[in-house]
């Protein structure tokens, strides 16, 4: 290949394409060689390659022998029309058998005791024919008398026709020379003279018992000329081929065809060999450069390379199976040559199929080559992939390697026991078969037991994980009770639990520390505040000369108490939100609680002229901490008192719903509500942005936290000026015992 001259360039795309085109060209050339070869082989067998002359070929001999047979038939068997008409060429047996067959006559008593006469128009009776058959005899007699003469005439006519055909055939054979000699040396038939045959180079003499063959180079096979007619006669047959041949008969055609074949075969072989060589070279070149852009470059794969190699091979194999079946059928049809038009179509299909097959082969070979070059051929097999997948299961930490062995042992155990069970009777140990059967059951029961044990430990792990998901991280996962197959898994789960527990503990600890910090800071604030309150109070008692000064003292007095309230709220808020509060739950009457709370707040409500409307259709008992509930209601009521439209009504509804005792408090806001209701429960968010009114901004936040630590919810809805607070607390279940649940 010219492309190999420069190594650096051989990986270029244009060379690859050229090589592929060349490859296909060679393939096409091989295809045409095949077609020519098939055409030659239609006429000639393999000996055409060895034969020097047409006379040496089997085809020539066969044709010659056929012609010879015709000549023997015409000139020895029939000899002349007159002889046929005289009935001299009649084969009596053949004639009578044909007649009997034609009329369905079966040989038996009648035919055995009779004979047809020489003129074929009557019956001669020799033996005794039983009375019972006389009727049949008469019938046979009538048949022979009436039908046989016409059958005889027909027979003679057929012989005449055959004779004429032979003569006509022989007349056409210009290059076939022969004559027939009787035992006395007189020529009795033929198309030539003794002298001409004598001059001829390629001659043949046949007679009963003697032959001489000078037709071709090699002594010929006598059996070809094994002619029964000649064997029965005393005639001698002299045959020859005219040399040189004259055009116009089939010998000449054969000779010419031979010449052509003889000429074309070497060319054919040469072209074939060259094409094959080209094909191989192109393929080797392509194999070398495929998948790479430079020497030693990274292998680039195509889509087909992703197929598992077994599957790829099977697909290619399947394609070739189908292709060969189709191709051989087509070739057969074409060679039979029955439908001339379709031959072109079939040939086209065949050619296309051939090209596709070549392309598939090239693609497959190159794909395999690429994978070999990348050393990934075996890795890219389904078996390898499966093994890898299996080994992933059993190696590493997920499953222990010996699990494979255990499984194999299980399979092997079953096989062995079953083998014993099946084979034992053949060796005469029938008892062992029964024993093995029992063993098989026991073995499997045992294995099942182990399996169930393993499953149970899986269940243990699952339960533990479920507990963890509920937040119970201290659910014990006893590793010593876990089946070894899940031990790694269980350890991982245990580690996760520990990790989660630590994380949650840290979070709780952090939250608690925060609450403690706030509490401590608040304590430190309280001590100086005590002094402030005391001395402000003392100041108030002093006789102050200045009116304004006493006004200031009043403000100091008020604000110091406000500060006190703020600090207390802060502590409570931090405790409530961090869950750092003791919750003592008991059976609490929601209605009574509300009435008590209202009693406590009654004076303040009256001061702002609020009227409360309570509706409670049935007793509602909730599972709650009364003290915390009071704080919730206190916050809500003081909220209402602070922000309600004066002299309006406040509605309080208490009812049960979905396992919760629900309190809904509705009031009309004095100021338009222009803030996001969801933000109200956040700490330090207040209804009035100016923060002038009393309150820490923690009230609703505390309320929400308190509701939540009691397992309830707190929500706020705003609809225009209507402000709605909803406190839902779990109902007291009659079944529950009066136990006190303590939560830190």
């Amino acid at each position: 290949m010219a492309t190999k001259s420069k190594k650096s360039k051989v990986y270029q795309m244009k060379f690859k394409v050229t090589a592929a085109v060349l490859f296909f060209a060679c393939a096409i050339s091989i295809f045409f060689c095949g077609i020519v070869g098939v055409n030659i082989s239609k006429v000639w067998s393999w000996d055409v390659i060895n034969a020097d002359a047409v006379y040496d070929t089997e085809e020539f001999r066969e044709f010659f022998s056929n012609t010879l047979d015709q000549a023997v038939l015409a000139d020895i068997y029939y000899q002349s029309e007159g002889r046929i008409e005289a009935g001299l060429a009649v084969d009596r047996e053949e004639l009578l058998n044909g007649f009997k067959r034609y009329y369905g006559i079966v040989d038996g008593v009648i035919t055995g005791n009779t004979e047809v006469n020489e003129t074929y128009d009557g019956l001669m009776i020799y033996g005794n024919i039983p009375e019972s058959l006389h009727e049949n005899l008469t019938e046979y007699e009538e048949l022979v008398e009436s039908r046989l003469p016409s059958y005889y005439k027909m027979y003679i006519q057929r012989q005449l026709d055959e004779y004429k055909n032979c003569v006509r055939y022989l007349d056409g054979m210009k290059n076939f020379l022969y004559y027939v000699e009787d035992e006395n040396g007189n020529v009795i038939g033929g198309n030539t003279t003794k002298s001409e045959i004598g001059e001829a180079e390629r001659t043949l003499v046949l007679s009963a018992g003697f032959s001489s063959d000078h037709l071709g180079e090699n002594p010929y096979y006598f059996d070809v000329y094994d002619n029964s007619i000649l064997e029965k006669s005393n005639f001698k047959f002299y045959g020859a081929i005219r040399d040189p041949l004259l055009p116009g008969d089939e010998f000449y055609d054969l000779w010419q065809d031979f010449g052509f074949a003889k000429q074309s075969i070497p060319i054919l072989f040469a072209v074939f060999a060259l094409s094959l060589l080209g094909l191989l070279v192109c393929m080797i070149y392509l194999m070398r450069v495929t998948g790479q852009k430079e020497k030693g470059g990274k292998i680039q794969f195509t889509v087909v390379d992703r197929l598992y190699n077994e599957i790829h091979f099977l697909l290619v194999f399947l394609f070739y199976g189908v292709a060969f079946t189709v191709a051989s059928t087509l070739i057969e049809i074409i060679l039979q040559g029955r439908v001339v038009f379709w031959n072109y179509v079939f040939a086209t299909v065949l050619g296309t199929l051939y090209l596709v097959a070549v392309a598939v082969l090239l693609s497959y070979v190159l794909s395999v080559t690429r994978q070999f070059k990348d050393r990934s051929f075996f890795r890219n097999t389904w078996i390898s992939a499966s093994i890898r997948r299996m080994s992933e299961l059993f190696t590493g930490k997920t499953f222990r390697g010996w699990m494979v062995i255990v499984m194999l042992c299980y399979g092997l155990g079953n096989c062995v026991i079953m083998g014993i069970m099946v084979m034992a009777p053949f060796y005469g140990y029938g008892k062992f078969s029964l024993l093995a059967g029992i063993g098989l059951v026991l073995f499997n029961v045992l294995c099942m037991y182990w399996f169930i044990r393993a499953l149970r430990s899986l269940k243990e792990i699952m339960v533990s994980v479920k507990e963890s998901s509920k937040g119970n991280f201290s659910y014990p996962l006893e590793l010593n009770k876990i089946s070894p197959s899940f031990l790694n898994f269980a350890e991982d789960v245990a580690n996760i639990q520990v990790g989660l527990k630590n994380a949650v503990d840290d979070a709780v600890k952090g939250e608690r520390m925060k609450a403690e910090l706030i509490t401590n800071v608040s304590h430190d604030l309280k001590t100086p505040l005590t002094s402030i309150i005391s001395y402000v109070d003392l100041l108030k008692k002093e006789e102050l000369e200045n009116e304004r000064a006493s006004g200031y003292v009043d403000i100091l007095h008020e604000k110091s108490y406000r500060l006190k309230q703020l600090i207390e709220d802060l502590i409570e808020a931090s405790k409530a939100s961090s869950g750092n509060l003791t919750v003592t739950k008991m059976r609490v009457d929601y209605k009574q609680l509300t009435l008590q709370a209202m009693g406590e707040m009654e004076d303040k409500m009256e001061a702002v002229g609020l009227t409360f409307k309570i509706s409670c259709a049935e007793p509602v008992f909730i599972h709650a901490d009364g003290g915390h509930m009071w704080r919730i209601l206190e916050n809500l009521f003081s909220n209402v008192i602070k922000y309600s439209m004066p002299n309006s009504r406040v509605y309080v509804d208490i009812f049960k719903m979905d396992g919760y005792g629900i309190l809904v408090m509705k009031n009309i806001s004095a100021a338009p509500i222009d803030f996001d209701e969801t933000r109200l429960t956040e700490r330090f968010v207040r209804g009035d942005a100016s923060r002038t009114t009393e309150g820490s901004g923690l009230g609703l936040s505390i309320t929400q936290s308190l509701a939540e630590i009691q397992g309830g919810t707190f929500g706020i809805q705003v609809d225009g000026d209507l402000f709605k607070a909803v406190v839902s607390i779990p109902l007291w279940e009659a079944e529950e015992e009066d136990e006190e649940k303590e939560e830190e």
Partner: protein
Amino acid sequence: MEQFNILVCDDDKSIVDAIEIYLKQEGYRVIKAYNGLEALQALEENEIHLILLDVMMPEMDGLNATVKIRESLNIPIIILSAKSEDTDKILGLNFGADDYITKPFNPLELMARVKSLMRRYTALGSIAEKNNIIRIGGIELDKDAKEVRVEGEKIKLTATEYGILQLLMENAGKVFSIDEIYEKVWNEASFAPENTVSVHIRRIREKIEINPKEPRYLKVVWGIGYKIEKI
């Protein structure tokens, strides 16, 4: 009148001084200490009738001092503390304190509590028992006179308030629900949900308690009812 000595112990000098002013106004004599050890020393050196003790102090804290004092003395101890948790209060009272006041306190409340304890410590114990008088802590309910005295001082109650207080005091420690109180005091069944009873309770508390927000006697059991604490 005999002058009583009160020991005020707090590590914050300004608080001690402020308390001293109030106590002197009430006619008490004040001995000052700034930590637990000083307090114990002052106790040895003086005859003390009542102690005001801070909890968080250097050297020796209030709780330990309380324990030490209780080893030998039976005088009233009031703990003053910034710790306002229920657990802190319970702890302090269990250690032997008679009262627990959280900082920041109202000076007037502090004075009221001091007086209350002093009165009981010095005078009340000696008063002769009369029939038909129910006494709980500093509260006396005279059923014959239909009078109520708190720390010896007569207070004015309405007939309903008196009825409620009598019911609760006769059954000290027992919790009465609103409905029960209504039925027993008004002598009729309660129908509509009303806050009448709870309003009366609040008013009673305002009259008998030093700090109505942190009642010592008339307690609310939230969502269940009311009771007078057995003291």
